[in-house]
């Protein structure tokens, strides 16, 4: 005999529509208590969601998520999640736009693509399928302590990530305070199509200068390392959750993430430009092999009479000099007993990595590390969205979410020479997100 969550409770009661359900309601009215239902074993709570993410002229992603959770009694909870993504479209290569058309070799070395004059160079061969599996087991240990352990597996065509995690949480102060500590270890291996580029090697572009296919291939292969590379990541998390009063809950987290290994994006390049701003060559980027990040997170949930306000702030800083601030807010308004709307607003700001450069200058010496990946540059981003949820008479819930996302890269103080002054070096990324989810 144990309590099961309210979600599956409604399912159970509604589905059987029996005497017990009516009696449970009458009992609650008599005793003035909230409804709880016992079951020998909890039911599986399942969620399925389908998400569409579409950037204008860039990446389109479709993601399906299926998650299931079951309480095997006395808060022994198993949860699992399967995510499958499919990405297609084009992504910024890191090269700068030019007043003339540009020809690039595809990252695989097989074939070329041409970017029109004035256009942001996008690598249009971007497509991938990713499958992720997660499983987590949580149970009480001793003295108000809970333990949780899990595994995470993520597989893409050229990427494999395996992670294990464990955490402990302990309640204090009549369960009003929960302190937790967690550890996660991840091991990633990467083996990109066509091999990993040699740092700062020049992109080999076949413009008729090669005697034959073999000569081209030999020149291309000289820019590549064929073995796989890897990265290990250790994450530590410490958190305190405090119930302030009947309506307010606050959470503070500190996270430390240390990664060691291959951080470079094998598909990203930098343009080497002369003092007129004209591209002379393209070189492959290179990033440091270590990164240490700290993040500080504060969240407050406030229960209103007819909804919930959820506001959070995150500050992250790392030894690449990327400092970021995130403000996220959601307000849930219950329209009726069975329906709600939830506006969402998120604002994000980050400073550029110390090795970020939108391009390299021909006459300057090569830096130790460099990347023109817009995701490492200075930027602001915001999301606005709206979610609508409704509980069906069966107790199952449908939810619909629509969001708009815009990312505005900024110039982090680089002077653009000559022709580059007339070109958009920091184009915005605009995306629409739509999601349908069903809980049963």
């Amino acid at each position, binding site marked *: *005999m*144990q*309590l099961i969550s309210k979600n599956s409770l409604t399912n*159970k009661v509604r589905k*059987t529509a*029996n*005497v*017990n359900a*009516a*009696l*449970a309601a*009458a*009992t609650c*009215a*008599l*005793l*003035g*208590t909230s*409804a*709880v*239902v*016992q*079951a*020998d074993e909890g039911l599986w709570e399942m969620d399925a969601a389908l998400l569409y993410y579409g950037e204008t002229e860039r990446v389109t992603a479709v993601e399906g998520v299926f998650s299931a959770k079951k309480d095997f*009694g*006395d*808060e022994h909870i198993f949860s699992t999640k399967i995510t499958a993504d499919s990405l297609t479209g084009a992504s910024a290569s890191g090269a700068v736009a030019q007043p003339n058309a540009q020809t690039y070799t595809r990252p695989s070395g097989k074939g070329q693509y041409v970017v029109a004059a004035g256009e942001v160079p996008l690598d249009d061969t971007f497509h991938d399928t990713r499958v992720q599996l997660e499983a987590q087991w949580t149970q*009480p240990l*001793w*003295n*108000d302590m809970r333990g949780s352990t899990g595994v995470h597996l993520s597989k893409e065509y050229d990427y494999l990530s395996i992670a294990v995690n464990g955490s402990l949480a302990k309640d204090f102060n*009549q*369960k009003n305070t929960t302190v937790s500590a967690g550890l996660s270890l991840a091991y990633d291996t990467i083996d990109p199509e066509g091999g990993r580029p040699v740092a700062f090697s020049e992109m080999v572009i076949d413009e008729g200068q090669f005697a034959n296919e073999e000569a081209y291939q030999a020149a291309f292969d000289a820019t590549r390392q064929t073995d796989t590379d890897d990265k290990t990541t250790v994450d530590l998390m410490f958190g305190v959750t405090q119930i302030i009063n009947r309506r307010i809950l606050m959470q503070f987290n500190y996270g430390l993430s240390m990664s060691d290994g291959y951080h470079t994006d094998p598909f990203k390049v930098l343009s080497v430009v002369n003092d007129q701003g004209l591209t002379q060559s393209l070189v492959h980027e290179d990033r440091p092999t270590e990164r240490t990040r700290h993040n500080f997170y504060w969240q407050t949930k406030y229960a209103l009479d007819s909804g919930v306000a959820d506001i959070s702030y995150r500050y992250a800083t790392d030894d690449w000099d990327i400092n970021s601030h995130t403000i996220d807010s959601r307000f849930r308004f219950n329209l009726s007993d069975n329906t709600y709307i939830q506006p969402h607003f998120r604002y994000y700001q980050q400073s550029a990595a110390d090795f970020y450069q939108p391009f390299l200058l021909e006459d300057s010496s090569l830096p130790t590390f460099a990347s023109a990946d817009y995701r490492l540059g200075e930027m602001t981003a915001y999301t606005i969205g709206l979610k609508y949820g409704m509980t069906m008479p069966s107790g199952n819930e449908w939810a619909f979410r629509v969001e708009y996302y815009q990312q505005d890269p900024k110039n982090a103080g680089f002077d653009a020479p000559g022709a580059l002054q007339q070109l958009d070096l920091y184009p915005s990324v605009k995306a629409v997100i739509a999601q349908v989810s069903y809980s049963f």
Partner: protein
Amino acid sequence: MNDAFTIEQKSDHIIGRFAAMASPCELLIETKDPLLANHLTSLAYKESQRIEQKFSRYLPNNLMANINHRMGKAVAIDDETFRLLEFANTCFELSDGMFDITSGVLRKAWKFDGSDNLPTPDAVKVLMPHIGWRKVKYTQSSITLAKGMELDFGGIGKEYAVDCVAKLCAESASTTSIVVNFGGDIQVTRARHNSQPWHIGIENPEDDNSTTKVLKIVSGGLATSGDARRYLLKDGKHYSHILNPETGYPTETAARSVTVAAPHCIQAGLLATMALLKGPNAEVFLEQQDVKFWCYR
């Protein structure tokens, strides 16, 4: 300390004991603090006294005596009484009229003492006009019973008291696991810290020698209806003490006792009673309710 209740220290909990509602009552409290145990047992004792004083039909000058002997005149009631009447009304509807708190008058004809003394048909027949929940008129503030009719909260009173006591204990010691056990009607306020089940000795209804069997409960409520010792036996036929308010006679082939587990004691109690009233269909009924139960025939 109060003479009305006692406290006994066990290895990992404290037991508070007292008597109320013609039953041995106990609290199993997961604490080592005797002051907390004393406070909770005192609270439980006072609450059960309060409920017994107010709703027992055996006492001469209480609310029930007032309601039952006004002979057609309205009697003022408070909110608690109204909520109990509403609950009884729901039970009447859910049981298609088989659970009827006006059927207690049948006790004037039926004495379930293990003998073969069946009442005469006339003795039963004369009581039938005084039975019928639908004849009871009540509002939020008053109730009117026709002359000769009586209300009897005996079918829900003890379970109600268990739930009220459990609620008070949970409010007073929200992090402590407490078992409220009034003669086998049980409510656990919350799971123990180590999530181990409570082991509770309850009387075996199948055995007259008062042997106990040990029952494990983690959380929620448990209640038993039926009494294996209350029956009549005539010409080899067994008459259970479960009376059908529509016929005035015992329910045919009723189980001897039914124990049900549910989130709340009173909910479990009503399911058990309704199952008994279903006669041969008790098990089928309980299966449909998706609850854990034990049926003794």
